[in-house]
Protein backbone atom coordinates (compact mmCIF):
# COMPACT_ATOMS: atom_id res chain seq x y z
CA UNK A 1 0.00 0.00 0.00
CA UNK A 2 2.67 2.46 1.15
CA UNK A 3 4.92 1.37 -1.70
CA UNK A 4 2.22 1.99 -4.26
CA UNK A 5 1.55 5.47 -2.85
CA UNK A 6 5.24 6.44 -2.97
CA UNK A 7 5.45 5.00 -6.48
CA UNK A 8 2.47 7.09 -7.37
CA UNK A 9 4.13 10.20 -5.90
CA UNK A 10 7.33 9.63 -7.84
CA UNK A 11 5.32 9.15 -10.98
CA UNK A 12 3.43 12.40 -10.55
CA UNK A 13 6.65 14.32 -9.73
CA UNK A 14 8.21 13.03 -12.92
CA UNK A 15 5.10 13.90 -14.85
CA UNK A 16 5.11 17.42 -13.44
CA UNK A 17 8.75 17.82 -14.37
CA UNK A 18 8.05 16.61 -17.88
CA UNK A 19 5.10 18.98 -18.17
CA UNK A 20 7.34 21.85 -17.08
CA UNK A 21 9.87 20.96 -19.75
CA UNK A 22 7.17 20.75 -22.38
CA UNK A 23 5.67 24.15 -21.52
CA UNK A 24 8.80 26.16 -20.87
CA UNK A 25 12.08 26.86 -22.63
CA UNK A 26 15.53 25.51 -22.01
CA UNK A 27 17.76 27.45 -19.64
CA UNK A 28 19.86 28.71 -22.56
CA UNK A 29 16.87 30.09 -24.48
CA UNK A 30 15.48 31.63 -21.31
CA UNK A 31 18.62 33.53 -20.41
CA UNK A 32 19.26 34.57 -24.00
CA UNK A 33 15.79 36.13 -24.18
CA UNK A 34 16.26 37.87 -20.83
CA UNK A 35 19.65 39.14 -21.95
CA UNK A 36 18.33 40.52 -25.27
CA UNK A 37 15.43 42.22 -23.45
CA UNK A 38 17.90 43.65 -20.95
CA UNK A 39 20.15 45.03 -23.72
CA UNK A 40 17.19 46.66 -25.44
CA UNK A 41 16.16 48.37 -22.20
CA UNK A 42 19.75 49.46 -21.51
CA UNK A 43 20.08 51.18 -24.88
CA UNK A 44 16.63 52.72 -24.98
CA UNK A 45 15.73 53.39 -21.32
CA UNK A 46 18.61 53.22 -18.87
CA UNK A 47 21.16 55.08 -20.96
CA UNK A 48 18.92 58.11 -21.67
CA UNK A 49 18.07 58.32 -17.98
CA UNK A 50 21.70 57.93 -16.92
CA UNK A 51 23.01 60.56 -19.32
CA UNK A 52 20.58 63.16 -18.01
CA UNK A 53 22.04 62.90 -14.52
CA UNK A 54 25.70 62.43 -15.48
CA UNK A 55 25.60 65.43 -17.83
CA UNK A 56 23.75 67.53 -15.26
CA UNK A 57 26.39 66.77 -12.63
CA UNK A 58 29.36 66.84 -15.03
CA UNK A 59 30.64 70.14 -13.64
CA UNK A 60 30.03 69.45 -10.00
CA UNK A 61 27.23 70.10 -7.58
CA UNK A 62 27.65 73.87 -7.29
CA UNK A 63 27.31 74.38 -11.06
CA UNK A 64 24.36 72.01 -10.97
CA UNK A 65 22.49 74.10 -8.44
CA UNK A 66 23.60 77.35 -10.10
CA UNK A 67 21.45 76.37 -13.10
CA UNK A 68 18.31 76.75 -10.97
CA UNK A 69 19.23 80.12 -9.51
CA UNK A 70 19.20 81.76 -12.90
CA UNK A 71 16.16 84.10 -13.17
CA UNK A 72 15.02 82.60 -16.51
CA UNK A 73 15.15 79.10 -15.05
CA UNK A 74 13.19 80.21 -12.00
CA UNK A 75 10.51 81.87 -14.09
CA UNK A 76 10.30 78.74 -16.29
CA UNK A 77 9.80 76.59 -13.20
CA UNK A 78 7.15 78.98 -11.90
CA UNK A 79 5.26 78.99 -15.21
CA UNK A 80 5.36 75.19 -15.44
CA UNK A 81 3.96 74.91 -11.92
CA UNK A 82 1.28 77.49 -12.73
CA UNK A 83 0.18 75.76 -15.96
CA UNK A 84 0.01 72.36 -14.28
CA UNK A 85 -1.63 73.93 -11.24
CA UNK A 86 -4.51 75.16 -13.40
CA UNK A 87 -4.72 72.32 -15.93
CA UNK A 88 -4.67 69.40 -13.48
CA UNK A 89 -7.52 70.55 -11.16
CA UNK A 90 -9.71 71.50 -14.15
CA UNK A 91 -9.15 68.14 -15.82
CA UNK A 92 -9.73 66.45 -12.48
CA UNK A 93 -13.16 68.07 -12.11
CA UNK A 94 -13.92 67.23 -15.73
CA UNK A 95 -12.72 63.64 -15.25
CA UNK A 96 -14.98 63.10 -12.25
CA UNK A 97 -18.01 64.68 -13.94
CA UNK A 98 -17.49 62.81 -17.21
CA UNK A 99 -16.91 59.44 -15.57
CA UNK A 100 -19.98 59.90 -13.34
CA UNK A 101 -22.20 60.63 -16.34
CA UNK A 102 -20.67 57.92 -18.53
CA UNK A 103 -20.17 55.10 -16.04
CA UNK A 104 -23.29 55.49 -13.90
CA UNK A 105 -25.88 56.13 -16.61
CA UNK A 106 -26.94 54.67 -19.93
CA UNK A 107 -27.70 57.15 -22.65
CA UNK A 108 -27.64 57.50 -26.40
CA UNK A 109 -24.31 58.38 -27.97
CA UNK A 110 -22.27 57.27 -24.99
CA UNK A 111 -19.56 55.48 -26.95
CA UNK A 112 -19.26 58.47 -29.29
CA UNK A 113 -18.71 60.67 -26.25
CA UNK A 114 -15.97 58.35 -24.97
CA UNK A 115 -14.24 58.49 -28.35
CA UNK A 116 -14.46 62.30 -28.40
CA UNK A 117 -12.88 62.47 -24.94
CA UNK A 118 -9.98 60.41 -26.31
CA UNK A 119 -9.44 62.74 -29.25
CA UNK A 120 -6.65 64.87 -27.71
CA UNK A 121 -4.51 61.74 -27.26
CA UNK A 122 -4.53 61.02 -30.94
CA UNK A 123 -3.77 64.56 -32.10
CA UNK A 124 -0.12 65.50 -32.67
CA UNK A 125 1.13 67.92 -29.97
CA UNK A 126 2.07 70.42 -32.66
CA UNK A 127 -1.45 70.36 -34.09
CA UNK A 128 -2.85 70.68 -30.55
CA UNK A 129 -1.02 73.98 -30.22
CA UNK A 130 -1.87 75.09 -33.74
CA UNK A 131 -5.63 74.82 -33.26
CA UNK A 132 -5.46 77.50 -30.55
CA UNK A 133 -3.27 79.72 -32.72
CA UNK A 134 -5.87 79.41 -35.47
CA UNK A 135 -8.63 80.33 -33.02
CA UNK A 136 -7.04 83.01 -30.83
CA UNK A 137 -3.96 84.14 -32.81
CA UNK A 138 -3.82 87.47 -34.60
CA UNK A 139 -4.64 85.72 -37.89
CA UNK A 140 -7.17 83.51 -36.14
CA UNK A 141 -10.96 83.54 -36.12
CA UNK A 142 -11.26 85.46 -32.85
CA UNK A 143 -7.95 87.29 -33.29
CA UNK A 144 -9.25 90.69 -34.41
CA UNK A 145 -11.88 90.79 -31.63
CA UNK A 146 -9.32 89.82 -28.97
CA UNK A 147 -6.86 92.42 -30.26
CA UNK A 148 -9.57 95.11 -30.17
CA UNK A 149 -10.22 94.27 -26.51
CA UNK A 150 -6.52 94.01 -25.71
CA UNK A 151 -6.72 90.38 -24.62
CA UNK A 152 -3.64 88.30 -25.31
CA UNK A 153 -3.97 84.52 -25.36
CA UNK A 154 -1.43 83.33 -27.90
CA UNK A 155 2.23 84.04 -27.07
CA UNK A 156 1.04 84.60 -23.51
CA UNK A 157 0.30 82.57 -20.39
CA UNK A 158 -3.41 81.79 -21.17
CA UNK A 159 -2.38 80.04 -24.41
CA UNK A 160 0.14 77.90 -22.56
CA UNK A 161 -2.47 76.93 -19.98
CA UNK A 162 -5.01 76.11 -22.71
CA UNK A 163 -2.56 73.95 -24.64
CA UNK A 164 -1.62 72.14 -21.43
CA UNK A 165 -5.29 71.50 -20.63
CA UNK A 166 -5.83 70.11 -24.13
CA UNK A 167 -2.98 67.60 -24.11
CA UNK A 168 -3.83 66.33 -20.62
CA UNK A 169 -7.58 66.43 -21.18
CA UNK A 170 -8.42 62.68 -21.17
CA UNK A 171 -6.10 61.39 -18.42
CA UNK A 172 -8.34 61.45 -15.32
CA UNK A 173 -11.54 60.58 -17.20
CA UNK A 174 -9.88 57.61 -18.91
CA UNK A 175 -8.62 56.30 -15.61
CA UNK A 176 -11.94 56.67 -13.79
CA UNK A 177 -14.49 55.45 -16.36
CA UNK A 178 -13.52 51.75 -16.25
CA UNK A 179 -13.14 51.87 -12.45
CA UNK A 180 -16.57 53.36 -11.82
CA UNK A 181 -18.10 51.05 -14.40
CA UNK A 182 -16.64 48.01 -12.63
CA UNK A 183 -18.21 49.17 -9.36
CA UNK A 184 -21.78 49.22 -10.55
CA UNK A 185 -24.41 51.37 -8.85
CA UNK A 186 -25.77 49.18 -6.05
CA UNK A 187 -23.82 50.85 -3.25
CA UNK A 188 -24.90 54.33 -4.35
CA UNK A 189 -28.50 53.19 -4.68
CA UNK A 190 -28.34 51.78 -1.16
CA UNK A 191 -26.92 55.04 0.21
CA UNK A 192 -29.64 57.05 -1.54
CA UNK A 193 -32.46 54.85 -0.28
CA UNK A 194 -31.08 55.24 3.23
CA UNK A 195 -31.56 58.97 2.84
CA UNK A 196 -28.11 60.25 1.83
CA UNK A 197 -28.02 63.25 -0.47
CA UNK A 198 -26.34 63.09 -3.85
CA UNK A 199 -23.20 64.82 -2.58
CA UNK A 200 -23.01 62.65 0.54
CA UNK A 201 -23.29 59.57 -1.64
CA UNK A 202 -20.48 60.76 -3.84
CA UNK A 203 -18.14 61.78 -1.00
CA UNK A 204 -18.77 58.82 1.29
CA UNK A 205 -19.50 55.97 -1.13
CA UNK A 206 -18.10 56.63 -4.60
CA UNK A 207 -14.96 58.58 -3.78
CA UNK A 208 -13.46 56.11 -1.25
CA UNK A 209 -13.92 53.36 -3.83
CA UNK A 210 -12.10 55.18 -6.62
CA UNK A 211 -9.48 57.09 -4.66
CA UNK A 212 -6.46 55.10 -5.89
CA UNK A 213 -7.48 55.27 -9.51
CA UNK A 214 -8.18 58.96 -9.08
CA UNK A 215 -4.75 59.57 -7.56
CA UNK A 216 -3.15 57.59 -10.36
CA UNK A 217 -4.96 59.65 -13.01
CA UNK A 218 -3.89 62.88 -11.34
CA UNK A 219 -0.26 61.74 -11.19
CA UNK A 220 -0.25 60.89 -14.91
CA UNK A 221 -2.04 64.10 -15.79
CA UNK A 222 0.47 66.14 -13.80
CA UNK A 223 3.51 64.42 -15.32
CA UNK A 224 2.28 65.13 -18.81
CA UNK A 225 1.24 68.70 -17.94
CA UNK A 226 4.69 69.59 -16.62
CA UNK A 227 6.53 67.89 -19.45
CA UNK A 228 4.50 68.99 -22.47
CA UNK A 229 6.71 70.43 -25.17
CA UNK A 230 5.25 70.44 -28.70
CA UNK A 231 1.86 72.03 -28.03
CA UNK A 232 3.25 74.61 -25.61
CA UNK A 233 6.09 75.41 -28.00
CA UNK A 234 3.62 76.46 -30.71
CA UNK A 235 1.59 78.83 -28.52
CA UNK A 236 4.35 80.20 -26.30
CA UNK A 237 6.31 82.52 -28.57
CA UNK A 238 9.40 81.66 -26.50
CA UNK A 239 9.65 84.95 -24.64
CA UNK A 240 12.42 84.46 -22.12
CA UNK A 241 11.45 84.95 -18.51
CA UNK A 242 7.80 85.27 -19.51
CA UNK A 243 6.38 82.50 -21.65
CA UNK A 244 8.99 79.78 -21.29
CA UNK A 245 8.11 76.60 -19.46
CA UNK A 246 10.76 74.18 -18.23
CA UNK A 247 10.81 72.02 -21.40
CA UNK A 248 11.08 75.18 -23.55
CA UNK A 249 13.85 76.52 -21.33
CA UNK A 250 15.71 73.23 -21.79
CA UNK A 251 15.43 73.62 -25.56
CA UNK A 252 16.85 77.15 -25.49
CA UNK A 253 19.77 76.19 -23.25
CA UNK A 254 20.52 73.17 -25.41
CA UNK A 255 20.45 75.16 -28.64
CA UNK A 256 22.84 77.67 -27.05
CA UNK A 257 25.24 74.81 -26.29
CA UNK A 258 24.76 75.24 -22.54
CA UNK A 259 24.50 71.48 -22.25
CA UNK A 260 25.20 71.18 -18.54
CA UNK A 261 22.54 73.76 -17.64
CA UNK A 262 20.06 72.15 -20.07
CA UNK A 263 20.56 68.76 -18.46
CA UNK A 264 20.37 70.26 -14.98
CA UNK A 265 16.85 71.56 -15.69
CA UNK A 266 16.09 68.29 -17.52
CA UNK A 267 17.14 66.34 -14.44
CA UNK A 268 14.31 67.94 -12.46
CA UNK A 269 11.80 66.69 -15.03
CA UNK A 270 13.52 63.28 -15.10
CA UNK A 271 13.16 63.11 -11.31
CA UNK A 272 9.49 63.97 -11.71
CA UNK A 273 9.19 61.09 -14.20
CA UNK A 274 10.83 58.69 -11.74
CA UNK A 275 8.56 59.86 -8.94
CA UNK A 276 5.61 59.29 -11.29
CA UNK A 277 6.73 55.73 -12.00
CA UNK A 278 7.26 55.01 -8.29
CA UNK A 279 3.87 56.51 -7.44
CA UNK A 280 2.29 54.38 -10.16
CA UNK A 281 3.78 51.21 -8.69
CA UNK A 282 2.77 52.25 -5.18
CA UNK A 283 -0.81 52.97 -6.21
CA UNK A 284 -1.04 49.67 -8.09
CA UNK A 285 0.32 47.83 -5.05
CA UNK A 286 -2.05 49.60 -2.69
CA UNK A 287 -5.07 48.94 -4.90
CA UNK A 288 -4.12 45.30 -5.26
CA UNK A 289 -3.80 45.00 -1.48
CA UNK A 290 -7.26 46.41 -0.92
CA UNK A 291 -8.62 44.08 -3.59
CA UNK A 292 -7.31 41.04 -1.84
CA UNK A 293 -9.72 41.77 1.00
CA UNK A 294 -12.73 39.44 0.77
CA UNK A 295 -15.29 41.89 -0.57
CA UNK A 296 -12.98 43.88 -2.78
CA UNK A 297 -13.64 44.12 -6.47
CA UNK A 298 -10.95 44.46 -9.05
CA UNK A 299 -10.23 48.15 -8.82
CA UNK A 300 -6.60 47.92 -9.75
CA UNK A 301 -5.71 50.85 -11.98
CA UNK A 302 -5.57 49.72 -15.55
CA UNK A 303 -2.17 48.79 -16.89
CA UNK A 304 -3.09 50.58 -20.06
CA UNK A 305 -4.01 53.86 -18.44
CA UNK A 306 -1.07 55.54 -20.13
CA UNK A 307 -2.12 54.30 -23.55
CA UNK A 308 -4.51 55.86 -25.97
Amino acid at each position, binding site marked *: MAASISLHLIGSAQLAARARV*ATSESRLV*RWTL*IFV*AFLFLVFFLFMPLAIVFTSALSKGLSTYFAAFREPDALSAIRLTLLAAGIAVPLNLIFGIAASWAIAKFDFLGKSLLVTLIDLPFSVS*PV*VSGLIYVLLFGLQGLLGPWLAAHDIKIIFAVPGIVLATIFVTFPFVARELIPLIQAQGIEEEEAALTLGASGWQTFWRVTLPNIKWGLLYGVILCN*ARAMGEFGAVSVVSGHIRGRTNTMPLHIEILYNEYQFQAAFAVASLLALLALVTLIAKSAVEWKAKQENSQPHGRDLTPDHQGFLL
Partner: protein
Amino acid sequence: MTFKQRSILPGFGLTLGFTLTYLSLIVLIPLSATFLKASSLSWAAFWHIVTSPRALASYRLTFGASLIAALINLFFGMLLAWVLVRYNFPGKKIFDSMVDLPFALPTAVAGIALTTIYSTHGWVGRYLDSIGIKAAYSPLGVVIALTFIGLPFVVRTVQPVLEDLDKEMEEAAASLGANRWQTFSRVILPSVAPAALTGFTMAFARAIGEYGSVVFISGNMPMKTEITPLLIITKLEQYDYAGATAIAVVMLVFSFTMLLAINLLQKWSSRHHHSGGTPEVVEGEALHAPVYAEA
Protein backbone atom coordinates in the same frame (compact mmCIF):
# COMPACT_ATOMS: atom_id res chain seq x y z
CA MET B 1 -36.07 54.54 -27.40
CA THR B 2 -35.57 57.30 -24.89
CA PHE B 3 -32.37 59.28 -24.68
CA LYS B 4 -31.53 58.05 -21.20
CA GLN B 5 -32.52 54.98 -19.21
CA ARG B 6 -34.19 55.59 -15.86
CA SER B 7 -31.99 55.67 -12.79
CA ILE B 8 -32.40 56.84 -9.20
CA LEU B 9 -28.85 58.25 -9.10
CA PRO B 10 -28.76 62.04 -9.20
CA GLY B 11 -26.48 64.39 -11.07
CA PHE B 12 -26.87 63.14 -14.63
CA GLY B 13 -27.90 66.50 -16.06
CA LEU B 14 -25.23 68.41 -14.17
CA THR B 15 -22.32 66.10 -14.96
CA LEU B 16 -23.24 65.46 -18.59
CA GLY B 17 -23.90 69.16 -19.13
CA PHE B 18 -20.53 70.10 -17.68
CA THR B 19 -18.78 67.34 -19.64
CA LEU B 20 -20.27 68.47 -22.95
CA THR B 21 -19.58 72.16 -22.30
CA TYR B 22 -15.97 71.58 -21.29
CA LEU B 23 -15.41 69.13 -24.16
CA SER B 24 -16.82 71.64 -26.66
CA LEU B 25 -14.82 74.59 -25.34
CA ILE B 26 -11.47 72.84 -25.04
CA VAL B 27 -11.57 70.28 -27.84
CA LEU B 28 -14.43 70.42 -30.33
CA ILE B 29 -14.64 74.15 -31.08
CA PRO B 30 -10.89 74.67 -31.51
CA LEU B 31 -10.66 71.55 -33.70
CA SER B 32 -13.52 72.63 -35.92
CA ALA B 33 -12.02 76.11 -36.15
CA THR B 34 -9.05 74.46 -37.85
CA PHE B 35 -11.27 72.85 -40.46
CA LEU B 36 -13.12 76.13 -40.90
CA LYS B 37 -9.82 77.91 -41.48
CA ALA B 38 -8.77 75.23 -43.97
CA SER B 39 -12.04 75.59 -45.85
CA SER B 40 -11.10 79.18 -46.71
CA LEU B 41 -8.47 77.66 -48.99
CA SER B 42 -9.59 76.57 -52.45
CA TRP B 43 -9.27 72.86 -53.18
CA ALA B 44 -6.53 73.52 -55.73
CA ALA B 45 -4.53 75.64 -53.28
CA PHE B 46 -4.99 73.04 -50.54
CA TRP B 47 -3.87 70.23 -52.85
CA HIS B 48 -0.89 72.26 -54.02
CA ILE B 49 0.33 72.74 -50.42
CA VAL B 50 -0.20 69.20 -49.19
CA THR B 51 1.46 67.63 -52.24
CA SER B 52 4.42 69.98 -52.50
CA PRO B 53 7.76 68.11 -52.75
CA ARG B 54 8.82 69.27 -49.29
CA ALA B 55 5.55 68.06 -47.73
CA LEU B 56 5.80 64.73 -49.57
CA ALA B 57 9.37 64.26 -48.37
CA SER B 58 8.24 64.92 -44.80
CA TYR B 59 5.40 62.37 -45.08
CA ARG B 60 7.83 59.77 -46.41
CA LEU B 61 10.20 60.29 -43.49
CA THR B 62 7.46 60.50 -40.86
CA PHE B 63 5.57 57.44 -42.07
CA GLY B 64 8.67 55.41 -42.92
CA ALA B 65 10.47 56.07 -39.64
CA SER B 66 7.26 55.57 -37.63
CA LEU B 67 6.61 52.26 -39.36
CA ILE B 68 10.15 50.98 -38.75
CA ALA B 69 10.05 52.14 -35.11
CA ALA B 70 6.66 50.49 -34.56
CA LEU B 71 7.96 47.24 -36.10
CA ILE B 72 11.00 47.32 -33.80
CA ASN B 73 8.65 47.88 -30.88
CA LEU B 74 6.37 45.07 -32.05
CA PHE B 75 9.24 42.60 -31.92
CA PHE B 76 10.95 43.82 -28.75
CA GLY B 77 7.64 44.61 -27.08
CA MET B 78 6.49 40.99 -27.42
CA LEU B 79 9.89 39.80 -26.25
CA LEU B 80 9.78 42.11 -23.20
CA ALA B 81 6.21 41.13 -22.36
CA TRP B 82 7.15 37.45 -22.63
CA VAL B 83 10.23 37.82 -20.43
CA LEU B 84 8.35 39.88 -17.83
CA VAL B 85 5.38 37.49 -17.62
CA ARG B 86 7.06 34.09 -17.94
CA TYR B 87 10.50 34.34 -16.35
CA ASN B 88 11.85 35.23 -12.97
CA PHE B 89 15.11 37.11 -12.63
CA PRO B 90 16.62 39.65 -10.27
CA GLY B 91 15.41 43.21 -10.82
CA LYS B 92 12.29 42.13 -12.69
CA LYS B 93 10.01 44.54 -10.79
CA ILE B 94 12.26 47.48 -11.62
CA PHE B 95 12.36 46.47 -15.29
CA ASP B 96 8.61 46.25 -15.33
CA SER B 97 8.04 49.73 -13.94
CA MET B 98 10.81 51.22 -16.09
CA VAL B 99 8.94 50.17 -19.24
CA ASP B 100 6.60 53.12 -18.66
CA LEU B 101 9.45 55.64 -18.58
CA PRO B 102 8.85 56.92 -22.13
CA PHE B 103 5.30 57.89 -21.07
CA ALA B 104 6.49 59.73 -17.99
CA LEU B 105 9.68 61.34 -19.27
CA PRO B 106 9.03 64.66 -21.04
CA THR B 107 9.78 64.38 -24.74
CA ALA B 108 12.24 67.27 -24.73
CA VAL B 109 14.30 65.52 -22.05
CA ALA B 110 14.23 62.28 -24.05
CA GLY B 111 15.23 64.26 -27.13
CA ILE B 112 18.37 65.86 -25.71
CA ALA B 113 19.35 62.64 -23.89
CA LEU B 114 19.08 60.47 -27.01
CA THR B 115 20.88 63.07 -29.13
CA THR B 116 23.77 63.18 -26.65
CA ILE B 117 24.04 59.37 -26.58
CA TYR B 118 23.85 58.84 -30.34
CA SER B 119 25.82 61.85 -31.64
CA THR B 120 29.35 61.23 -32.93
CA HIS B 121 30.98 61.78 -29.52
CA GLY B 122 28.26 60.11 -27.51
CA TRP B 123 28.33 56.88 -25.50
CA VAL B 124 26.95 54.84 -28.40
CA GLY B 125 27.34 57.25 -31.30
CA ARG B 126 31.15 57.10 -31.26
CA TYR B 127 31.13 53.33 -31.84
CA LEU B 128 28.50 53.60 -34.56
CA ASP B 129 30.55 56.41 -36.10
CA SER B 130 33.69 54.26 -36.18
CA ILE B 131 31.89 51.67 -38.30
CA GLY B 132 30.54 54.39 -40.56
CA ILE B 133 27.00 54.71 -39.22
CA LYS B 134 25.70 58.20 -38.57
CA ALA B 135 22.94 57.91 -35.99
CA ALA B 136 22.11 61.42 -34.84
CA TYR B 137 21.13 64.04 -37.44
CA SER B 138 20.01 61.35 -39.90
CA PRO B 139 16.80 59.39 -40.56
CA LEU B 140 18.24 56.68 -38.28
CA GLY B 141 18.14 59.20 -35.43
CA VAL B 142 14.43 59.77 -36.10
CA VAL B 143 13.85 55.99 -35.89
CA ILE B 144 15.76 55.83 -32.58
CA ALA B 145 13.68 58.63 -31.02
CA LEU B 146 10.40 57.12 -32.26
CA THR B 147 11.40 53.68 -30.97
CA PHE B 148 11.94 55.22 -27.54
CA ILE B 149 8.57 56.94 -27.33
CA GLY B 150 6.65 53.92 -28.68
CA LEU B 151 8.38 51.34 -26.48
CA PRO B 152 5.67 50.79 -23.82
CA PHE B 153 2.67 50.29 -26.12
CA VAL B 154 3.15 46.70 -27.31
CA VAL B 155 4.50 45.58 -23.91
CA ARG B 156 1.48 46.96 -22.10
CA THR B 157 -1.10 45.58 -24.53
CA VAL B 158 0.44 42.09 -24.76
CA GLN B 159 1.34 41.68 -21.07
CA PRO B 160 -2.20 41.24 -19.67
CA VAL B 161 -3.12 38.78 -22.45
CA LEU B 162 -0.05 36.66 -21.75
CA GLU B 163 -0.81 36.74 -18.03
CA ASP B 164 -4.33 35.43 -18.65
CA LEU B 165 -3.26 32.83 -21.17
CA ASP B 166 -4.16 29.40 -19.89
CA LYS B 167 -1.19 27.10 -19.42
CA GLU B 168 -3.46 24.13 -20.14
CA MET B 169 -3.58 25.07 -23.80
CA GLU B 170 0.19 24.82 -24.00
CA GLU B 171 0.16 21.56 -22.05
CA ALA B 172 -2.41 20.19 -24.47
CA ALA B 173 -0.26 21.20 -27.44
CA ALA B 174 2.82 19.65 -25.85
CA SER B 175 1.00 16.43 -25.00
CA LEU B 176 -0.14 16.19 -28.60
CA GLY B 177 3.50 16.19 -29.63
CA ALA B 178 4.17 19.81 -30.50
CA ASN B 179 7.66 21.06 -29.74
CA ARG B 180 8.12 24.36 -27.91
CA TRP B 181 8.47 26.44 -31.05
CA GLN B 182 5.36 24.91 -32.61
CA THR B 183 3.42 25.59 -29.41
CA PHE B 184 4.62 29.17 -29.46
CA SER B 185 3.91 29.88 -33.11
CA ARG B 186 0.61 27.98 -33.39
CA VAL B 187 -0.94 28.40 -29.93
CA ILE B 188 0.57 31.38 -28.09
CA LEU B 189 1.25 33.72 -31.00
CA PRO B 190 -2.31 33.60 -32.43
CA SER B 191 -3.70 34.37 -28.94
CA VAL B 192 -1.58 37.48 -28.44
CA ALA B 193 -1.67 38.65 -32.07
CA PRO B 194 -4.71 40.96 -31.76
CA ALA B 195 -3.27 42.67 -28.66
CA ALA B 196 0.14 42.97 -30.29
CA LEU B 197 -1.44 44.47 -33.39
CA THR B 198 -3.32 47.00 -31.22
CA GLY B 199 -0.09 47.99 -29.48
CA PHE B 200 1.70 48.24 -32.82
CA THR B 201 -0.99 50.56 -34.20
CA MET B 202 -0.87 52.73 -31.06
CA ALA B 203 2.91 53.01 -31.27
CA PHE B 204 2.66 53.87 -34.96
CA ALA B 205 -0.03 56.52 -34.41
CA ARG B 206 1.89 58.07 -31.54
CA ALA B 207 5.10 58.16 -33.60
CA ILE B 208 3.44 59.95 -36.52
CA GLY B 209 2.55 62.95 -34.36
CA GLU B 210 5.68 62.99 -32.22
CA TYR B 211 7.68 66.20 -32.13
CA GLY B 212 9.68 66.85 -28.95
CA SER B 213 11.96 63.85 -28.92
CA VAL B 214 12.62 64.01 -32.67
CA VAL B 215 13.52 67.67 -33.29
CA PHE B 216 16.76 67.44 -31.34
CA ILE B 217 18.09 64.26 -32.90
CA SER B 218 16.87 64.67 -36.49
CA GLY B 219 18.92 67.69 -37.54
CA ASN B 220 15.82 69.14 -39.26
CA MET B 221 17.12 69.41 -42.81
CA PRO B 222 14.31 70.18 -45.30
CA MET B 223 13.69 67.28 -47.73
CA LYS B 224 16.01 65.04 -45.71
CA THR B 225 15.32 64.88 -41.98
CA GLU B 226 12.31 67.16 -41.60
CA ILE B 227 9.28 65.43 -40.05
CA THR B 228 5.74 66.60 -40.81
CA PRO B 229 5.01 68.20 -37.38
CA LEU B 230 8.22 70.23 -37.76
CA LEU B 231 7.11 71.37 -41.21
CA ILE B 232 3.95 72.77 -39.58
CA ILE B 233 6.08 74.72 -37.09
CA THR B 234 8.36 76.00 -39.85
CA LYS B 235 5.37 77.27 -41.81
CA LEU B 236 3.96 78.95 -38.70
CA GLU B 237 7.26 80.69 -38.03
CA GLN B 238 7.14 82.04 -41.59
CA TYR B 239 3.59 83.31 -40.90
CA ASP B 240 2.31 80.88 -43.55
CA TYR B 241 -0.90 80.10 -41.63
CA ALA B 242 -2.69 78.64 -44.66
CA GLY B 243 0.18 76.23 -45.30
CA ALA B 244 0.38 75.17 -41.65
CA THR B 245 -3.39 74.63 -41.53
CA ALA B 246 -3.44 72.53 -44.70
CA ILE B 247 -0.71 70.19 -43.44
CA ALA B 248 -2.38 70.06 -40.01
CA VAL B 249 -5.64 68.95 -41.66
CA VAL B 250 -3.77 66.08 -43.35
CA MET B 251 -2.38 65.04 -39.96
CA LEU B 252 -5.76 65.38 -38.25
CA VAL B 253 -7.51 63.23 -40.85
CA PHE B 254 -4.81 60.64 -40.38
CA SER B 255 -5.13 60.82 -36.56
CA PHE B 256 -8.90 60.31 -36.74
CA THR B 257 -8.44 57.31 -39.03
CA MET B 258 -5.93 55.79 -36.63
CA LEU B 259 -8.21 56.45 -33.64
CA LEU B 260 -10.99 54.60 -35.44
CA ALA B 261 -8.64 51.75 -36.37
CA ILE B 262 -7.41 51.44 -32.78
CA ASN B 263 -10.98 51.40 -31.43
CA LEU B 264 -11.94 48.62 -33.86
CA LEU B 265 -8.76 46.69 -33.09
CA GLN B 266 -9.37 46.96 -29.35
CA LYS B 267 -12.91 45.66 -29.77
CA TRP B 268 -11.65 42.77 -31.89
CA SER B 269 -8.80 42.14 -29.46
CA SER B 270 -10.97 41.98 -26.35
CA ARG B 271 -13.52 39.78 -28.13
CA HIS B 272 -10.76 37.48 -29.33
CA HIS B 273 -9.19 37.49 -25.88
CA HIS B 274 -12.39 36.46 -24.13
CA SER B 275 -13.75 34.04 -26.71
CA GLY B 276 -10.32 32.44 -26.77
CA GLY B 277 -10.38 31.98 -23.01
CA THR B 278 -13.89 30.93 -22.12
CA PRO B 279 -14.50 27.78 -24.21
CA GLU B 280 -11.08 26.58 -23.19
CA VAL B 281 -12.08 26.56 -19.51
CA VAL B 282 -15.31 24.75 -20.33
CA GLU B 283 -13.40 22.10 -22.26
CA GLY B 284 -11.01 21.72 -19.36
CA GLU B 285 -13.90 21.03 -17.00
CA ALA B 286 -15.42 18.57 -19.42
CA LEU B 287 -12.12 16.70 -19.52
CA HIS B 288 -11.94 16.50 -15.76
CA ALA B 289 -15.45 15.21 -15.27
CA PRO B 290 -14.94 11.62 -16.53
CA VAL B 291 -11.78 11.28 -14.44
CA TYR B 292 -13.73 12.00 -11.28
CA ALA B 293 -16.45 9.60 -12.40
CA GLU B 294 -13.94 6.79 -12.79
CA ALA B 295 -12.36 7.46 -9.41
